[in-house]
């Protein structure tokens, strides 16, 4: 269980408050206007932003300070892959950031690539991959890391609608199968509906507690109404 315990973070003049729990295995969409604090929320959970007040707990224990030691994986909007490393290396650094792969670990990385349908791209470089394939390579790394929490900071935002749906579906299957708790930042109510069970509204420096997504969109509170306009799904 992820617990943001009276958390407040500050970035420049901007501050964000959050105080809620997310049960293990839940898929949660993070929605809200630009500049409202969605990325700050993810950065705080990932450990890139140190809390001013409060703490982030996982299963009742405070998370370690260093982002690399936290029980989570994160996919960014871009720059998830190093352009000068092969796809296999890019995936394998999820397991061995020191890049000293044992034979068994290499087999694991290849298996993860296989699982996302990229087994023939192991020796290719990111520039040889399409946008969708780059997304899959990022997912392969997430798979390999086997961390119980996944943060998605709009990793598929640049893809076309059909491809984006496909990637969301693959991601959903993967996290569902492994029981990974997932937070996904998105701008698209449709994506939120199809991927997540819960949604967190982040606006004006405050992150609400997660609410079941159907009812939330069905009878949106004022702030969400303002954000959605007439685009409510």
């Amino acid at each position, binding site marked *: 269980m992820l617990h943001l315990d009276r958390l407040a973070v500050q970035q420049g003049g901007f501050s964000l408050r959050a105080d809620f729990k997310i049960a293990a295995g839940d898929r949660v969409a993070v929605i809200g206007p630009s500049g409202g604090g969605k990325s700050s929320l993810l950065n705080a959970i990932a450990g*890139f932003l140190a809390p001013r007040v409060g703490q982030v707990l996982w299963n009742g224990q405070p998370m370690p300070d260093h*982002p690399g030691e936290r029980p989570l994986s994160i996919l960014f909007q871009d720059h*998830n892959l190093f352009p*000068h490393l092969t796809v296999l290396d890019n995936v394998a*650094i999820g397991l061995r950031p020191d*890049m000293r792969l044992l034979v068994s670990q290499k087999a694991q990385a290849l298996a993860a690539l296989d699982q996302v349908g990229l087994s023939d791209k192991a020796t290719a470089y990111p520039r040889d991959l399409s946008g969708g394939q780059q997304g899959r390579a990022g997912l392969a790394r997430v798979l390999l890391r086997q961390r119980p929490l996944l943060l998605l900071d709009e990793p598929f935002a640049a893809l076309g609608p059909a491809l984006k749906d496909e990637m969301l579906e693959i991601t959903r299957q993967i996290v569902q199968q492994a029981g990974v708790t997932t937070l996904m930042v998105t701008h698209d109510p449709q994506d939120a509906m199809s991927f997540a069970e819960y949604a967190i509204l982040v606006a004006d420096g405050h992150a609400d507690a997660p609410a079941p997504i159907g009812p939330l969109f069905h009878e949106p509170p004022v702030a969400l109404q303002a954000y959605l306009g007439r685009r409510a799904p």
Partner: protein
Amino acid sequence: MLRSVVGGAALIALLIFSLGTALVVGLQGRGLGVLNSADWSAIKFTLWQASLSASLSIAMAIPVARALARQSFPGRQALITLLGAPFILPVIVGVLGLLAVFGRAGWISAALDWAGFAKLSVYGAPGVILAHVFFNLPLVTRLLLQAWMAIPAERFRVAESLSAAPWAYFRLIEGPMLRSTVPGAFLLVFLLCLTSFVVALAVGGGPRGTTIELAIYQAFRLDFDLGKAASLALVQFLICGTVSLLAFLVPLPQTNGLGLDRVLQRLDGWRHRLWDGFWISIAAAFLVLPLGAVLFRGLRHLLELPPQILAASVTSLTIAIISTALCLAMALSLSLAFARRGALARSLAEATGILGLASSPLVVGTGLFVLIFPYAQPMAFALPITASVNAMMALPFALRVLMPAVQETYGDYLHLRMSLGMGRWIWAKRILGPRLRRPIGFSAGLAAALSMGDLGVIALFADPDLQTLPLMLYRLMGAYRMDQAAATAVVLVVQSLFLFWMFDRGGRRHAAFG
């Protein structure tokens, strides 16, 4: 932590070298009272020639850059590459080439003489300005071309679709771009012309053609008047300091030399093509003819090279390699220490880089001479001093290339590195190293070529037995042995370009993407 210490050390070394030597010079100088009228006219001439050279370079660069931006023709890319050449070309070679075309014994004079007119004379002011335009016109053209290319194609299309008249076109698109580029370019060229020494040494001199740098050199080498040299050096430092403060306020245009391969699609009539063709031909001829002249002559007389060429080559190479290593070490430690800090630290680091641009080699040289003189024979330190001064002169350019690359790598991947828990060593070896390989190679190439062609401090310090290739070339010119000078120029150019090519290529290999 270590990074901050090393970066701080580099910064302090740099400050001692630039401001420290200037302070020593200031204390040694006997004030402005010792300056006679000839010195004051040197000061006036320096400012005048720098303004005129910068204005002319920019006035000519605008039509040339515009022509290159909107015309596509075979050889365009080659010409753009060639525009980068004068920057790494040894200045003394360029001067020799200009003399071959514009000098008393040059082609134009020969034609004028044949037609019954007086021969050209480029010694003094005309020569200084001609040479400064020769070296800076290509630089400004590249800067402007980059700015032109950075204008989104959509804006041209919008203007086209509104069928804007040429004047409206200029006001909508090109005017704003020039307004934001030209002041920085002007200051950059102004600064380069203030501190340029070789041009004045080779073609300047006399009451209407002596710059402050040349006056320092003469006070030092000819009159052995250290106090007067120091007073002049102080004036030079004050002027350069003021201009670089200005340059710090006006952002200098970026010169990364990349992204010049797209031709703007514009529907222009034959009048434009004619006008553009005219400017492209002028620029190409101005660049190619002098270089061609000196290389052609040099190749014909290659066998007449004096035997000292070998020793001079080795000396030059040694200095260049030491200076490159020094420059890279400083640039890397400064970039790594400052690139990730706040805007203030970055400005500080960049200001230090500009110090290198503003410090005149002769001021630094004079300062070091004054410092060493009481304890040892300064001439004995000619090589290490030349190598360090050269490193400092190349530093601003290396910083311009490296700093953004370091920043970009950290900006793009720092979070990913942290979330993967990637260690310091593996990050440096497998991520930062490969990402910086290209900019490191390019800046090493620049530093090596600049050092190879330098003829500043070495002219101040060298005894008759010690010579670098540029110094040897200068001495041959002084003895009117022009064939041998041209042959030496060939050796010098080949070595400079080879060093540049080797380092730059080393950086490109295995790193051709990203």
